[in-house]
Each structure stands twice: as structure tokens, then as C-alpha cells.
């Protein structure tokens, strides 16, 4: 941090408070961002001069070890804070970072598929209908990427009912036509993620610039690359199409062509994808791996390959109490109650959080060194959960969380750790099983 001249220390300290201390009510309301602009100005003027009240404010900050009341982000602070710096959310969604994140995420998706499915590269057979299948299926299967490890920044899980996902995932293997779901889902995607649409469009444009590359992609018989090149509406979904159709051979050039675009963030994703076993069958959606191929139909899950760079992922839930949109930025779980317009820090830990998964108001988030928190009330209160079995505790980084199960009962929690362990619990985290 830039040092300041010592005279500034002296003069800052010399400024004593002019008035009586604000009472506990005002200080509390200030800390909770509940004051009007005029009141806030008065309190902060006092705080700028009064070391005691600054200390009280700091001492009275909630203990994050127990529970963290959401702290209003500056984006939602209103006119009183209009002079503040730009909100982190805006920075996170700034165009350059999105574009690069999208490219890098795409590369990682393709690379992870290659790593997971090395034996099936040549199983696909070119067919005129292949491209059709791919473009048809990809938007439908896009929600499945929610559980993919590379949902680092740009992946969106629209509030799409689960049955079409399953159907389409299976249908991608054999069916050649499902135009209607595609159209419907595309429409649903648009209002939710205009930025992503645009970003994918840029991706498309860049792909086209690489004419040789584009030729390879467009000639892809089973459509993963074709979707990447032509559709552009949901780039990661193309990977899911690959999953469903087992067609990966023609995507291989993509990483080599764009490998130089990979950011530091996504590199660990590949590392983590390597030890993944043989992937997961498309027909077994509850299953998850360290690479997290398929999301359970009724959960929205996001993983961060790394907490190093702000890269919010978004989910949306239909119920009013579950309107929260979640993201992880720089190791902090963020929550938005207005569809991403403003964000609040929902949970901040000493160890950066890496991933989360929510099922309505039931949200789990995990991070480094076995950090795992659970909130059953949409993030208002948090409880730390320590997965353990027979005295053995999970201490590795939690890289992925998946929720599945019936709406009525507690969801099955499946967490993947960086040491390739998979822990699961069917009773809300009370007891665990390790695989």
C-alpha cells in the first residue's frame, strides 16, 4: 500500500471529534447500511475524527466464524454512496474479463472432455444429420454445465425445468430433431444472459476469424464444435452435447489453437480434470466426479476452478424466498436478490470459497482446506459442516458440490475434493460417506 507522509498521520490524529459520540443505534444502523444519506454523512464525519468509535465499529463487526449477515455491497448502497468506486460486480462482468474467461472456459471444457473421454474420440461417425443434432441439443443441455468444473464465470443456469434436460441429454445420443425445445430454451436464455449471448457471439466471431480452425469446427460431424462455431448462444453447452453424443474427435484442435488464451484461473481446472475417472454416464445424473460432468436435474451448481479472479456464476430460482442469485468472487460468496443488479457478500471466510451449489434456499458452499458451509435459509445464517467419517476429516480443498434428490427431503450432498475424494451425505451433512 502506498505510504503517506508522516505529517498526515499527525494531522489525522489531531482532528478530534466535535460532537458527542453517535449512540449504539446509529452506529449499528451505519454498520448495517441502514442510515439515510444525511445521517450517514454525520456518522462518518464523526468516525473520521473519533478513534474510539472507529474501534467500536470494527469490534462490533459480525464474527464471520459464526454467521455473516449480508453486507450491502456498494452497488446497492444508494445515493449516499454515489461517490464510491465501481462495484466489484461490475468489474467482474466487465467485457474484457468476460471475453477472456469465456474463451478460456471453452478451452478448458474441451480439454477436460478430451481428458475424460480419450477412448471414445473416434467412435463418432460423420453424418449429415450430426450437426443438426448438436445444434438442437446444445441449448437444452446447457443447464447441465452448471455442474461442470469450468463454470468459472460465464455459465448460466436458467430456471429451466429438469425433465427437458434429462430428455434432451438422452436424446442427443440418438434423436436428430428437437427443434422446439431449442427455440424455447433459447428464448429463455436471452433475457437472463444478454451479456453472455453477446460474449458468445464474440467467441463465435473470433472462431470464424480463424478460418482454418473454423473449417475444422464446422466440419465436425457430431456438432460440439459446430455448436461452438455457429450457434454461439451457449458455448459451454456444446461440451455437454459432446458428452451426450460421445463425439469429440473434431474438437481437438480447439485447445491447441486457443491454448494461449487460457488464463491462470482455468489452468487448475485442467489439472483437476485429469484425475477424474472415466467420466459419468449420461444416464446417471446423480453421480458426480471431480470433473463434475453432469448436474443433477434439480440443482444449480457452480464451481470455481480458482478463486483468484472474480468470476461470478449465476443461478436463478423461482420461489420468492429463493430468488437469490449466487456467485463466488475472489473467494467470497456473493448473493444478488435482484437478478444480478446488485450484490451482497453472503459469506466470507479465511479460506477462499471455491464452489457452491444451491437447491432453492438450501445452499452449500465449499472452499480451501475443507471449508464447508451450509445455509438452509437462503444465506441468512450459516453453519459450518465438517465432513468426517471414522475420525477422518476432509481437509483437502473442496472443488465441487452437487445437490440432488427429491424436493421434499434433504438433498443428497456430494462434494468433490482436490485429493480426488468424493464425500456424500444424504442427511444434510450429519453423516458422510467417502468414496
Amino acid at each position, binding site marked *: *500500500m502506498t505510504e503517506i*507522509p508522516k505529517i498526515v498521520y*499527525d494531522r489525522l490524529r489531531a482532528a*478530534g471529534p466535535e460532537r458527542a459520540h453517535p449512540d449504539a443505534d446509529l452506529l449499528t444502523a451505519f454498520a448495517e447500511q441502514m442510515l439515510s444519506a444525511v445521517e450517514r454523512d454525520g456518522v462518518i464525519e464523526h468516525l*473520521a475524527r473519533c*478513534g474510539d468509535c472507529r474501534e*467500536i465499529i470494527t469490534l462490533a463487526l459480525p464474527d464471520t466464524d459464526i454467521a455473516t449477515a449480508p453486507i*450491502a455491497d*456498494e452497488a446497492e448502497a444508494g445515493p449516499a454512496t454515489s*461517490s464510491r468506486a465501481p462495484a466489484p460486480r461490475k468489474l467482474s462482468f466487465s467485457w474484457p474479463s468476460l471475453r477472456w474467461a469465456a474463451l478460456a472456459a471453452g478451452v478448458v471444457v474441451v480439454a477436460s472432455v478430451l481428458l475424460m473421454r480419450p477412448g471414445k474420440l473416434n467412435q463418432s461417425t460423420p453424418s449429415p444429420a450430426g450437426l443438426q443434432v448438436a445444434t438442437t441439443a446444445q441449448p437444452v443441455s446447457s443447464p447441465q454445465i452448471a455442474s461442470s468444473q469450468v463454470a468459472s464465470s460465464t455459465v448460466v443456469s436458467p430456471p429451466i425445468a429438469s425433465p427437458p434436460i434429462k430428455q434432451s441429454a438422452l436424446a442427443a445420443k440418438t434423436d436428430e430433431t428437437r427443434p422446439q425445445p431449442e427455440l424455447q430454451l433459447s428464448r429463455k436464455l436471452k433475457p437472463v444472459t444478454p451479456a453472455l449471448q453477446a460474449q458468445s457471439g464474440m467467441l463465435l466471431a473470433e472462431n470464424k476469424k480463424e478460418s482454418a480452425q473454423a473449417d475444422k469446427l464446422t466440419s465436425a460431424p457430431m456438432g460440439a464444435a459446430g455448436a461452438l462455431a455457429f450457434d454461439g448462444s451457449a458455448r459451454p453447452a456444446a461440451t455437454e452435447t459432446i458428452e451426450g453424443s460421445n463425439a469429440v474427435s473434431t474438437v481437438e484442435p480447439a485447445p491447441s489453437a486457443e491454448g494461449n488464451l487460457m488464463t491462470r484461473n482455468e489452468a487448475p481446472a485442467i489439472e483437476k480434470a485429469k484425475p477424474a475417472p472415466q467420466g459419468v454416464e449420461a444416464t446417471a445424473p446423480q453421480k458426480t466426479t471431480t470433473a463434475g460432468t453432469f448436474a443433477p436435474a434439480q440443482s444449480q451448481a457452480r464451481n470455481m476452478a480458482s478463486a483468484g479472479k472474480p468470476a461470478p456464476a449465476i443461478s436463478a430460482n423461482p420461489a420468492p424466498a429463493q430468488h437469490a442469485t449466487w456467485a463466488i468472487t475472489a473467494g467470497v460468496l456473493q448473493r444478488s436478490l435482484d437478478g444480478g443488479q446488485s450484490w451482497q457478500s453472503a459469506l466470507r471466510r479465511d479460506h477462499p470459497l471455491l464452489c457452491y451449489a444451491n437447491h432453492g434456499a438450501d445452499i452449500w458452499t465449499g472452499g480451501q482446506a475443507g471449508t464447508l458451509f451450509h445455509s438452509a435459509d437462503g444465506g441468512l445464517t450459516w453453519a459450518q459442516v465438517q465432513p468426517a467419517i471414522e475420525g477422518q476429516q476432509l481437509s483437502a480443498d473442496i472443488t465441487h458440490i452437487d445437490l440432488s434428490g427429491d424436493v421434499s427431503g434433504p438433498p443428497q450432498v456430494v462434494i468433490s475434493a482436490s485429493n480426488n475424494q468424493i464425500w456424500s451425505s444424504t442427511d444434510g451433512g450429519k453423516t458422510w460417506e467417502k468414496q
Partner: protein
Amino acid sequence: MPKRAQSGHRAGAAAAPSVSLYERSGAAAYGVSVARFADILDEILHKYFGPASNSASASTEQKADFCAGLRLEELALARACAEGNERAWEDFISRYRRKLHSMALHITRDAAHAAELADSLFADLYGVNARDGLRRSKLVFYTGRGSLEGWLRTVMAQEFINRYRKQKRTVSLEEQTEQGVQFAAAVPEPACIFDRTSDRTSGRTSDQLLEAATDEALSELSAEDRFTLASYYLDGRTLAEIARTLGLHESSVSRRLDRLATGLRKRILAGLRTQGMSHAQAMEALATDVRDIGLNLRSRLTQDSGAKAFPGGSISAGDAGNTSHD
């Protein structure tokens, strides 16, 4: 508890909305009547907007919005506790007793002191200390502007600061004796690296010019900027703590501090030059400011403010029945 004079500032407009607010608050469950609840709201309005007769202070709509924005349920609970309602106390204890102890531990970082602090606050909340023969609960000062839990934390932090200051004054002489402070040389005046009178400009020393330029540069900053500077450089707060206090992101605070530090230096230099110093002189004055920060910190371990002690609530200044740090 003593009731405030209610009839004089009873806001007529508050009566109608107060019924819906009353229902929202759940005060009925704690035996608080509609009329009593309306009185409480009037009391709070009086605190923040002045007497109801002062129509210039705020419109009826503003007051209604203000009341609707209060933490009514927690307000009802706190006030019912203050009035001795048993059910309210049961609820309060079940909700906050454990939290009070964990808060105290968070503040004191010491189990023994935490227990002492929590018990002391709990006694204050219950109103063990009677005044004029009446039990007086500190909860009567809660007005629902923020969460009750946050208010409890703040009150506890205030209590901790007050105790710390008292304790420090009590033992400081012994500690100083143990540390041999009485044998220590007096803090020397800053060494005169440059002739402090040689830079006379407009009859002032370079130190005075420097102070004036610094004060001016600081006064041009917003209160929030000065708060950020003081928190980071004076108090040694972390970026995370400042960010949480202001509701910002750490990176925003970091950028702001960098900007402020750079801007301050420029402004001070510019101020010195407008006072007639050459650029070289201004740079020298800024760089050779020999008031060692360590010495200053030692001489000002506390930033005694001279302001009043923290009131438990300031419905009126005289009502504050809590401790004073003087």
C-alpha cells in the same frame, strides 16, 4: 420504566399506520398494547425528527416510511423485555444468550474477560441497576434502526472500550513503573535537521506551513475518505475490516487508499508551493518531516476525544445510564 410524556408529541398520523405496524411487530404476543406500541413509535420519531409540532422536520409520509423501515419485531421484543415481559425475556434469552457470549469472545479474545463482559451486559440489559427505585433496562434505548443483534454487538463493544479505558487508567501507573517509564528520558523535541526558522514564509515556519497544507488537503477529502485513511494508517485496520465497515469490496478500499495517498502528497506539495515554497523546498519539507511516528504513537496511545462517553442510547443525553470512560 419511566414513561416519556407522550401526549405532547403524539403524532396524529402515526396512529393509523401504527396498527398495521403493530400487527407486523408481533408485539401483542409480548403483552404490548397498541397504544403502548404507538407511544414507542412516537418516542422514536421524537428522537429522530424532533417534536411532532415541528412540522418542518419531516412530512407524515416520511415518518410513516421511517417507521415502516424499523426492525419492528425486534423492537417489540426489546421493549417488551425492558418492560419485564416474561415471554419476551424467554425469547430474548433463547435467541441471544449464547450469541452474547460468542460476541464477547469475539470482542475480547479472552474467555475470562468474555464471560465477564457478557454477564455485565446481560445485567445491564435486564436492568439490575436501579435508578430512582425503578429497574432500568438498557434495551429501552434500542430503537430498531439496525438489527437487535448488531445493536447488542455495538453496545458490548462500547462497554468493552469503556472498561478498557478505565482499566488502563487504573493500572497504567503500575505498568509504567514496571516498565521503568519514570526513568525514561523525556520525549525529545524533533531534531532540527533543517533550520525550522530558516524557511520562513509569510512569517510562519515550514512546520506550520506543512501542517496548514496538510490540514487543507485533508479538509478537501470527503469524510469517508478521511475515515478510510484513519482506519488504515492510524488504527491499522485491515482492508477487509474497512471494506466490511463501509460495505465495499476490499479491492475498492485498496484502490481508494492508493488514490488517496498519492493525491494527498500532491495536494500537500501544491499547498506548500502556493505558500511560496519552491518545489525543492516543498519536497524537502515533506520528506524531512522528522516527527517520528513511533514517538507520536507512544505519546498518544489513546486518542482521547473529550467527547461524551458512549451513551447506551441517546433518547436524551441524561438518560444514558451506562458507564463513562472518564
